[in-house]
């Protein structure tokens, strides 16, 4: 089911005619008095790489375990290919899962681990051998086929787990914090490998993670969860650029949040009065906002320009003194304190050597940004 030759962007979620592979219909899950998932509706489409992102305890793992069949829904239905999966036990679902602990069978070799699911399918014996070799090749572990799981490294184990869960060619692959146990460098390499494998196999991936960078890197869409509810479901760039709430804005990356009262200027332009003696912040919003609504203005640190003199061509400008500088290698974060005590973070790429840095501690600087650089959030 490859896409036809056209270079159309993969975005089935914006096509109203597309039928989702998975559909959550007002799904709730309660453990005693604790509500893990609350009246949740979600569509996931074929060939998507879908990330469930949230802090621990937000219900993302419960959601995944309901798909795998290890938890039953308390209310609502989950449809896979239009079929209600509630009565289907986990061993009969065309869904496979890669476990956080990898859950490799310690008493079986790498090859036998991969063949485990195939041996329990109608596949012929000779085909199983071929399929196992194909999977070993996919994850580049051909030389390790005879080893036991405890005889290989963590990164290799992760790849065995992936190969094992992909061997049966499931309609849907669930990945529960698949890279959590790897160190940072290996994790980044593996992220690209995962994306590559997902594209080559054309399998729908649903990944659970609490690492926002990971979700942003691998996923076609990200669902940000909080306390059993979906806060925002969107593409990584839109989640980052136009978060729909303070929660999402704060959870993903760094952000400056300024609270104040709204007053409309014209059409979609608004002014935010936020502190005495400071000019109002000019921003835009597609929403109709009433005069005096309490709002947050959210802007990413890299969208703030830092300069010695106030620029004349930008809608917003504030002045302050540099309180602190965090040198991160590829970029530096300047923490600037304004006259009313509010601090703002501005991030600047270090494209010159550090010795030639223009600003230093206690310098007077201007921070400026355009009227479309940030977002106005009402919740």
């Amino acid at each position: 089911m490859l896409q036809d030759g056209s270079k159309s962007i993969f975005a089935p979620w914006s096509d109203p005619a597309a039928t989702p592979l998975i559909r959550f219909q007002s799904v709730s899950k309660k453990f005693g008095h604790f509500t893990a998932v609350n009246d949740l509706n979600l569509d996931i489409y074929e060939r998507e790489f879908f990330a469930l992102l949230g802090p621990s305890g937000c219900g993302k793992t419960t959601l995944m375990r309901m798909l795998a069949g290890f938890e039953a829904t308390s209310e609502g239905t989950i449809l896979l290919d239009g079929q209600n999966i509630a009565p289907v036990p986990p061993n009969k679902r065309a869904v496979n899962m890669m476990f956080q602990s990898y859950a490799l069978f310690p008493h079986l070799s790498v090859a036998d681990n991969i063949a485990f699911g195939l041996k329990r399918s109608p596949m012929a014996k000779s085909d199983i051998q071929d399929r196992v070799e194909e999977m070993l090749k996919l994850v580049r572990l051909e030389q390790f086929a005879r080893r036991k799981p405890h005889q290989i490294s963590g990164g290799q184990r992760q790849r065995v787990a992936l190969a094992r869960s992909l061997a049966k060619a499931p309609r849907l692959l669930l990945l529960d914090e698949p890279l959590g146990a790897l160190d940072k460098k290996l994790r980044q390499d593996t992220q690209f490998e995962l994306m590559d494998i997902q594209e080559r196999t054309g399998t729908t991936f649903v990944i659970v993670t609490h690492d926002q960078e990971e979700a942003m890197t691998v996923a076609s869409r990200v669902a940000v969860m909080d306390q059993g509810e979906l806060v925002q479901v969107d593409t990584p760039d839109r989640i980052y650029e136009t978060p729909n709430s303070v929660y999402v804005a704060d959870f993903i990356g760094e952000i400056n949040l300024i609270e104040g009262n709204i007053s409309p200027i014209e059409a979609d332009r608004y002014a935010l009065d936020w502190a005495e003696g400071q000019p109002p912040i000019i921003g835009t919003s597609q929403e109709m906002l009433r005069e005096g609504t309490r709002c947050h203005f959210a802007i990413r640190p890299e969208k703030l320009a830092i300069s010695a003199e106030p620029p004349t061509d930008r809608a917003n400008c504030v002045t302050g003194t540099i309180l602190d500088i965090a040198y991160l290698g590829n970029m530096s974060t300047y923490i600037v304190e304004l006259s009313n005590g509010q601090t703002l973070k501005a991030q600047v790429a270090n494209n010159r050597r550090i010795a030639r840095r223009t600003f230093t501690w206690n310098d007077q600087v201007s921070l400026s940004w355009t009227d479309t650089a940030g977002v106005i959030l009402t919740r």
Partner: protein
Amino acid sequence: MNRRFSLFNATSLTLGFAFLYLPMVILIIFSFNASKLVAVWGGFSTRWYGELIQNEAFLDAAWVTLRVALLSSTFAAVLGTMAAYVMVRGGRFFGRTLFSGMIYAPLVMPEVITGLSLLLLFIAIGLDRGIMTIVLAHTTFSMCYVSVVVSSRLVTFDRSLEEAALDLGCTPFDAFRSVTLPNIAPAVISGWLLAFTLSLDDLVIASFTAGPSSTTLPIKIFSSVRLGVSPEINALSTLMIGVVTIGVVVASLVSKRAIARQQKDEQEARRT
């Protein structure tokens, strides 16, 4: 740490070991006594071992004991493993707390009471006392030891392994057979060994439930000793000590080697 071998250390070590092993050492020495008198040394001889082999009553008792131990420890291993699995994996079912409390009760129950109640039961249901009743009785009291050993292994056993098996198409029974069982096998085996040894040396429960045709070795030894300790008994006891020692040494060597091999494998994995 002070590694010096002080006088205090030497004394406590000697006292402790003497306390533990002196009786056994004396027993072993006197089993090689040529004299018929138990407490008088009459020179070295293996004569009592020779007589022991010809003593049919002892051989029969040994054979009964062995059969009872093999059967009852096997039943106990199966039942104990099942009980442990239900308690650890069964979730919260009605009466779980009561069940798990009751499974451990025989551990602290006085043997006399266990034996007496089993005897009453066998009489009530009209079961003739013989090897089968001893096997049943031994299974009853040793399965809780097995379930203690196995459930402590199951608690540390990563549950997601079973879930992975289900996920890959196993029925729950297939998942148990092909994933859980191979991984808890060492615990099941050591539970089986424990049940086997417990059955081998049980005297109290066996004497309640044994029939006239099914005398076990401990019963035989105990009743012979009441007529006076013979050097033959010493020889028999020495043989039993030997069997148990070999068993313990082999078991510890096997587990030591398994650990060493795993450590070596893991070191190799880190290097690659």
